[in-house]
């Protein structure tokens, strides 16, 4: 058998455990005495060790083992948590992270032994042991607990086929021990077969499995409840087997006892299965050193995992396929709707209409459900930020704290996967450029500890993520001077620029305001990358700043990428879709009302001056032979700015499925995609952001 198929699970779970460790160590730094947190840390480290061991990643196992030892000392009050230790633990986490990255990339943990970290870890333990007796004796009381627990469990000895009896006999004759092992999996375990496999893999290091109950095929197909058993021939003790089996995560319990052929053999016809108590294990087992196992067992009893939601891990590709099919369904539904709209005869159209409406409701609900399945909380991305800010606080030598709200805000999986880097960049920006150093803050009468915040919330069809700080704000004068200096704008242009326009200069490629290049930011690849990343996701980013008071970046992201509500418009004989989310209103404007500012057409609407965009001109459509008396203008907005798009006709609102134009047609920023209409025709989707 091959472990590679379980690599995914391993990677997923390991990163979860690492995240738990990181979170807990963070909170441990704040309250070093919290027993619950210490236990949590211990548990996570222990599971990590077990998993790494099972998968054969020895270096990773070694490191986690020593880490676990430190936690063990903390747990038994031998050492106190101090900041040195926290730093060291974070180093460990980084090292473990590096192992995971290696494994992800090459299925191999790499060759870095991290001896230095291990040595430091051991120094901690040595220090503790200098004051206290060796730990080995410590967990003794727990041992009895294990005994009691296993005493209740009985391993059923089951019917054997002749061939199986022979193999058992052979093993016994060969001087090996044969144990019957019964393993119980936790109730909420999702991948029972995988767990069973990991157990087999673990115990096969000690010997050979002779008999599977249920059969190995059934186990592989998950045709079993929470228990499975096997016979194993080994030279090792039963306790080692049990310990190995229990080391696999989500294993509730494992019990082993020697197989007694003489008892089960004489009456093989009898259905009644032999039962034996485990409190009389093989003599070797009694001698086997047990303290090592005790903490593991102790852990199992105290675990009581937080009640997890019942979930299924699904490959994102399968979800994409599902989404595509729902899209097809919506297209088909739209074409039915358009047919029913055309059909004039009223005889059976009443019920036809009703069915169509019914179908429409179902497809809309189906679409919503699929969307919800694809939604994940942004927590998975932002949870690493507190740690990052902590590290930044050290390297920059500024006191700061991160306040996050709305971590449970949900976004489409594909968006969440890509939003991490831009957010990280904005946070680093705030930490490095935004916040003043401690002395300056005190002088200015601000709290010494700078605050950086990240707020996420949903607003209509968008999710807003604000990243800000209470630091110095952006010095627009300085930005202006820099822009002039760099020749980006002329001094004359600079004079008439609004605050907002100046701030937007920061999003230009290679425009860095950092006075000195630091490790954190200021290499000139910065906000422009943030902006383009966010725009690639169909979102946008804005800045609000006040000198001396702070800066806030507002990132606006669409909830979904694949299907949107759009307004269909017509320009001559071409049809275009405009995302409903970016439309603020629609106006009929008499041509006489058009004014000119700097030779550009504008309209004056309820106190706002809005530039007009002639779509036919922008899209290279033949001009109209004669101008009508009034224009249909779709007012679109992007952040605070507005523009009026001149169209010929409005067709109506429609749910459209966004399709890519493919890789051949390029240089086309105006069109963000295409969609297939009910009659099979193709319409293009206008990207309002690039029009403005």
């Amino acid at each position, binding site marked *: 058998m091959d472990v590679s198929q379980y690599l995914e699970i391993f990677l997923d779970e390991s990163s979860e455990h690492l995240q738990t460790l990181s979170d807990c160590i963070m909170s441990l730094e704040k309250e070093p005495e919290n027993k619950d947190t210490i236990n949590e840390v211990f548990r996570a480290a222990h599971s990590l060790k077990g998993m790494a061991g099972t998968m054969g990643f020895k270096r990773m196992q070694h490191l986690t083992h020593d880490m676990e030892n430190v936690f063990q000392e903390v747990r038994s009050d031998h050492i106190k948590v101090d900041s040195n230790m926290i730093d060291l633990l974070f180093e460990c986490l980084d090292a473990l992270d590096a192992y995971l990255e290696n494994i992800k990339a090459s299925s191999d943990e790499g060759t870095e032994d991290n001896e230095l970290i291990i040595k430091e870890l051991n120094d901690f333990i040595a220090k503790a042991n200098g004051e206290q007796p060796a730990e080995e004796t410590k967990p003794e009381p727990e041992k009895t607990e294990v005994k009691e627990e296993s005493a209740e469990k009985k391993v059923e000895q089951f019917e054997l086929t002749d061939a199986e009896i022979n193999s058992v006999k052979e093993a016994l004759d060969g001087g090996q021990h044969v144990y019957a092992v019964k393993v119980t999996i936790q109730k909420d375990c999702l991948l029972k077969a995988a767990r069973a496999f990991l157990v087999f893999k673990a115990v096969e290091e000690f010997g050979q499995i002779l008999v599977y109950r249920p059969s190995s095929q059934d186990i592989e197909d998950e045709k079993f409840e929470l228990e499975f058993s096997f016979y194993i021939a080994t030279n090792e003790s039963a306790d080692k087997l049990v310990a190995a089996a229990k080391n696999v995560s989500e294993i509730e319990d494992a019990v082993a006892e020697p197989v007694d052929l003489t008892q089960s053999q004489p009456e093989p016809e009898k259905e009644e299965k032999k039962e034996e108590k485990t409190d009389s294990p093989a003599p070797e087992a009694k001698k086997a050193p047990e303290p090592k196992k005790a903490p593991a067992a102790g852990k199992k009893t105290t675990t009581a995992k937080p009640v997890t939601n019942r979930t299924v891990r699904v490959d994102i590709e399968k979800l994409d396929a599902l989404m595509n099919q729902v899209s097809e369904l919506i297209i088909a539904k739209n074409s039915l709707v358009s047919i029913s709209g055309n059909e004039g005869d009223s005889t059976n159209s009443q019920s036809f209409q009703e069915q169509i409406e019914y179908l429409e409701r179902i497809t809309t609900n189906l679409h919503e459900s699929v969307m919800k399945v694809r939604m994940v909380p942004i927590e998975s991305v932002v949870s690493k930020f507190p740690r990052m800010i902590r590290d930044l606080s050290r390297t920059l030598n500024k006191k700061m704290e991160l306040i996050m709200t709305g971590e449970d805000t949900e976004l489409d999986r594909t968006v969440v996967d890509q939003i991490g880097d831009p957010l990280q960049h904005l946070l680093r920006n705030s930490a490095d450029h935004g916040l003043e150093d401690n002395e300056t803050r005190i002088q200015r009468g601000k709290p010494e500890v700078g605050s950086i915040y990240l707020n996420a919330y949903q607003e209509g069809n968008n999710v807003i993520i604000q990243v800000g700080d209470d630091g110095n704000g952006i010095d627009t004068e300085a930005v202006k001077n820099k822009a002039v200096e760099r020749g980006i704008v002329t001094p004359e242009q600079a004079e008439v620029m609004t605050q907002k326009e100046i701030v937007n200069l920061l999003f230009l490629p290679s425009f860095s305001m950092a006075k000195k290049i630091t490790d954190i930011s200021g290499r000139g690849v910065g906000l422009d990358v943030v902006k383009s990343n966010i725009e690639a996701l169909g979102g946008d980013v804005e800045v609000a700043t006040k000198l001396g008071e702070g800066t806030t970046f507002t990132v606006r992201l669409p909830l979904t990428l694949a299907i949107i509500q759009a307004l269909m418009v017509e320009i001559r004989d071409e049809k275009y879709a405009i995302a409903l989310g970016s439309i603020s209103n629609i106006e009929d404007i008499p041509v006489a009302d058009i004014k000119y500012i700097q030779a550009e057409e504008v309209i004056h609407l309820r106190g706002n001056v809005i530039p007009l965009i002639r779509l036919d001109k922008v899209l290279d459509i033949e001009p109209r032979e004669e101008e009508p008396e009034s224009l249909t203008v779709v007012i679109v907005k992007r952040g605070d700015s507005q523009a009026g798009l001149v169209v010929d006709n409005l067709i109506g609102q429609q749910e459209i499925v966004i399709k890519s134009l493919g890789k*051949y047609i390029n240089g086309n920023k105006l069109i963000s995609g295409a969609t297939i209409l009910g009659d099979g025709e193709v319409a293009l989707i206008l990207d309002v952001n690039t029009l403005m």
Partner: protein
Amino acid sequence: MAEKKVENAELETKQYIVVSIGNEQYGIDIGYVDNIVRMQKITRVPKAQPYFKGIINLRGEIVPVMSIRRKMGLEDDVITNASRIIILKIEEKGSLGIIVDEVKEVVTLATDEIDKSATSSKNVKDNFINGIGKTGDSLVSLFEISAIVDEKENA
């Protein structure tokens, strides 16, 4: 796994779809051809490369359609009843449609029926040709698909 090298004489021949563009005949390696569809409404894409006619809906998929005439620097397409769109399947870039005046036939050419050297480098459209196939008494220019897919333009 190693026994995949079952080579035979069949590999010596290749099938081509013969199409006419203007008054010349061209051959397209059948391995690239996914489908041949009738002319349909092509949605123009503003600001696209000039040799792209636009996009069509091919059973729910968006497929860009190229005018091979424009790409080769010939006069513009004249769409008739015989015009077809040949859908090519290109591994790394997805499907692509090209417009031809007419689809004639499928021919099987052996390697000795293909003249690789006959292309004169004077003519720009020869960049798109990788050989001349001789079938009966007519000649067929064989398209180099990668050149068609390529960004370069000879208009």
